[in-house]
């Protein structure tokens, strides 16, 4: 395969995968939704869950995006330092966005700042957004594709607290956001919390927390315990699916952190709706690939 063929091959893979992610939920999300549905018995909660599963079945059958709001496309990349197409990845992902927008089709969501014009193809200034991480001594690349609608991006908030506010302040902040904005974010929600020394680091980590497999825990014992406590507590509030009330509120709470400054404790929250359209793909140096998030998926 020459260079040109390699670029085309990866573009085709990423176009097809971006298209696919809008139509099929990842395995862990699907399993969690089934588990939560089984716990509901009120007529309103039941009718909402039934609609959700009916919708997913129809999205697969008719090959259509599961939710009309396919977001502003984001890619979170863990790139091996030796990945042969490293320099081409940005252009490839832009092309993949354009292709998937046509093929899926995806709703046009990219509105240029100040010009306030919808570009009509889901690309724009710095969009698709790409977040980079370099992995030493690796010749492959792992890419998270994420499309979040407006509804589940609206609760996104950050706050820098005085250290005396402590982790208690973080808990209070997360719960306030969830009871004020959570209903519109299409519960059951996946809650990502970032804790760090400054706001942009916390915000970035809160989004990355949404990519951890549901049910996984923060590696620190206290972090894991805080996740468990908040998950149980938020479920105790009982937002139910779409806020109609029910036995649960969330699919999970994930916390990611970076060491903080002694004088600050920043917290940020990002939420993912029940239709949590994220997909993880690993592309090897020879451009063969493996889809990690959706077992058995065919592109």
């Amino acid at each position: 395969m020459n260079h040109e063929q390699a670029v085309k091959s990866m573009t085709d893979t990423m176009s097809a995968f971006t298209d696919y992610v809008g139509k099929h939920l990842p395995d862990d999300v699907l399993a969690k939704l089934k588990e939560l549905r089984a716990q509901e018995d009120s007529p309103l909660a039941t009718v909402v869950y039934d609609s959700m599963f009916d919708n997913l079945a129809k999205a697969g059958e008719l090959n259509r995006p599961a939710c009309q709001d396919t977001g502003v496309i984001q890619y979170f990349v863990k790139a091996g330092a030796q990945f042969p197409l490293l320099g081409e990845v940005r252009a490839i992902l832009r092309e993949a966005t354009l292709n998937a927008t046509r093929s899926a089709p995806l709703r046009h969501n990219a509105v240029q700042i100040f010009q306030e014009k919808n570009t009509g193809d889901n690309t724009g200034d710095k969009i698709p957004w790409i977040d980079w991480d370099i992995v030493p001594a690796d010749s492959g690349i792992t890419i998270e594709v994420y499309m979040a609608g407006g509804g589940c991006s609206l609760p996104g908030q950050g706050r820098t607290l005085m250290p005396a506010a402590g982790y208690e302040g973080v808990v209070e902040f997360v719960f306030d956001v969830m009871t004020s904005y959570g209903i519109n974010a299409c519960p059951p929600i996946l809650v990502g919390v970032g804790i760090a020394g400054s706001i942009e680091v916390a915000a970035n980590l809160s989004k990355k927390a949404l990519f951890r497999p549901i049910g996984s825990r923060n590696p620190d014992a206290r972090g894991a315990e805080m996740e468990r406590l908040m998950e149980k507590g938020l479920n105790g509030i009982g937002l139910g699916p779409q806020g109609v009330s029910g036995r649960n509120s969330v699919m999970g709470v994930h916390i990611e952190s970076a060491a903080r400054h002694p004088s600050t404790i920043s917290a940020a929250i990002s939420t993912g709706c029940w239709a949590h359209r994220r997909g993880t793909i690993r592309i090897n140096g020879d451009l063969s690939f493996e889809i990690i998030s959706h077992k058995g998926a065919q592109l």
Partner: protein
Amino acid sequence: MKKILTTPISNEDLASLTAGDIVYLTGQMVTCRDMGHRRLIELGIPLPVDLQGGAILHAGPIVRRAGEGWEMVSIGPTTSMRMEGYEREFIRQTGVKLVIGKGGMGPQTLEGCRESKAVHAIFPGGCAVLAATQVEEIERVEWLDLGMPEALWVSRVKEFGPLIITIDTKGNNLIDTNKATFNERKIPIVKEISAQVRFIK
């Protein structure tokens, strides 16, 4: 048995509905969200669709060309609260009877529903393909200059739903009542968790 509202919807059709009821819609439904509301209320531009006894959906769909017409690919509700500042006046001016969206709406819409005899309902968010399969035909589109999500898509729907009534004509607001409950439940829960996360000593 399914309770079905058919357009044009009359005041009597809505009188017996209570927040929390589940209904379906048959007839005409028009998508209308931020820009449609803004044009009518703030800019005073009349809507190019007659909504007397009609239904609107707060939504921005995915549509594609199908021959001479259009096909509804995917259409789910969007956050209704964005339209809160406009809806009371919108209901008053247009005579719309059913406002469908996602999440709750506030006191102004509640007042508008009471005085003009209208209701607000939610369609389960994210269920956009299910909704699209209940659209029989896109009759026409207006204000396409606003772009695909904001244009007014005039559709004929059959048993569109489930629609959960959140604001009825009698002054009940399901989501507001739920929110009050959620906030009450929150206080002791946050207190209990806070006591266990005092990691800074």
